[in-house]
């Protein structure tokens, strides 16, 4: 593992405007190995995600990625943007199945900024699409950001 990778720079409330685009995250094409690693890490061993024959048998046409893996990609984008401890809410709706070879891009836009409960907060909407523009996941988030000193 590379040891010269930097943690992303800190984001302040004053840096964000409504309408800002969140820096997009482009993931490599989905591999069977990633699904194996994700099954082990998450504990979700549903054979739909690990055994190609099961996907064919139950009618989804082959192996499909865990929806939560795609939510994980969006989580990575948000963690890079606001930092790992800034999220207050995060939700997604699963719209489409992801198959091997699909390359997912995560995007988002800031929809609101306000003060609540003693914290400065931003709200935004997020999305994950594949190489054909097909939407896999849509969602929203809320994060608390520090003020610049």
């Amino acid at each position, binding site marked *: 593992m590379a040891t010269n990778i930097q943690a992303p720079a800190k984001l302040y409330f004053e840096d964000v405007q409504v309408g800002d685009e969140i820096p997009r995250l482009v993931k490599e094409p989905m591999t069977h190995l990633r699904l194996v690693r994700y099954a082990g*890490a998450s504990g979700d061993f549903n054979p739909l995600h690990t055994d190609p024959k099961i996907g064919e048998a139950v009618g989804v046409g082959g192996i499909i990625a865990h929806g939560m893996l795609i939510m994980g990609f969006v989580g990575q984008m948000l*963690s890079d943007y606001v930092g*790992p401890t800034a999220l207050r809410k995060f939700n997604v709706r699963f719209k489409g199945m992801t198959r091997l070879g699909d390359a997912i891009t995560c995007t988002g836009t800031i929809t609101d900024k306000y003060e609540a409960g003693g914290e400065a907060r931003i709200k935004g909407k997020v999305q994950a699409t594949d190489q054909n523009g097909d939407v896999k996941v849509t969602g929203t988030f809320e994060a608390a950001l520090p003020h610049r000193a």
Partner: protein
Amino acid sequence: MFDKSKIGHSFAPFSIEVERCKIHELALAIGDDNPVYHSREAAQAAGYRDVPMFPTAPTMFSFWGNTHNLSQMTELGINVMRILHGEEEYEYLAPIYPGDVLTGVTTLIDGKSRQGKDGSSMDILTTETRYTNQNNQPVLNARTTFVVRG
């Protein structure tokens, strides 16, 4: 068809200790190489107390922590081979760090059955798991909506 009388029913609590190496493993699986998820030293150098929780780590608490996950589904009258994940929602109420021991209580908060035009049936169920830590402090609410195809 799921058991409608179970709406509002809460299952017995389960507990799980948050582990640094599992956060590392999950971040690796997702492909996030942010060093704070992979070593305590890097996390502390970035100003965190320890390795912070990855945003979708709560899914691990449910699968690895709730050993009765599958039997609870069956108790609700669900065919686990026909489940599709519909929605997932997290409310992060307080920081969660390695070493914290979380207790989760899962409740079936909503459920309905729908009939498609082709005669196929579909159940849509929502569970909520409320987590407290070793100090009895509420730390996380997780809501899962899943669809069970008839």
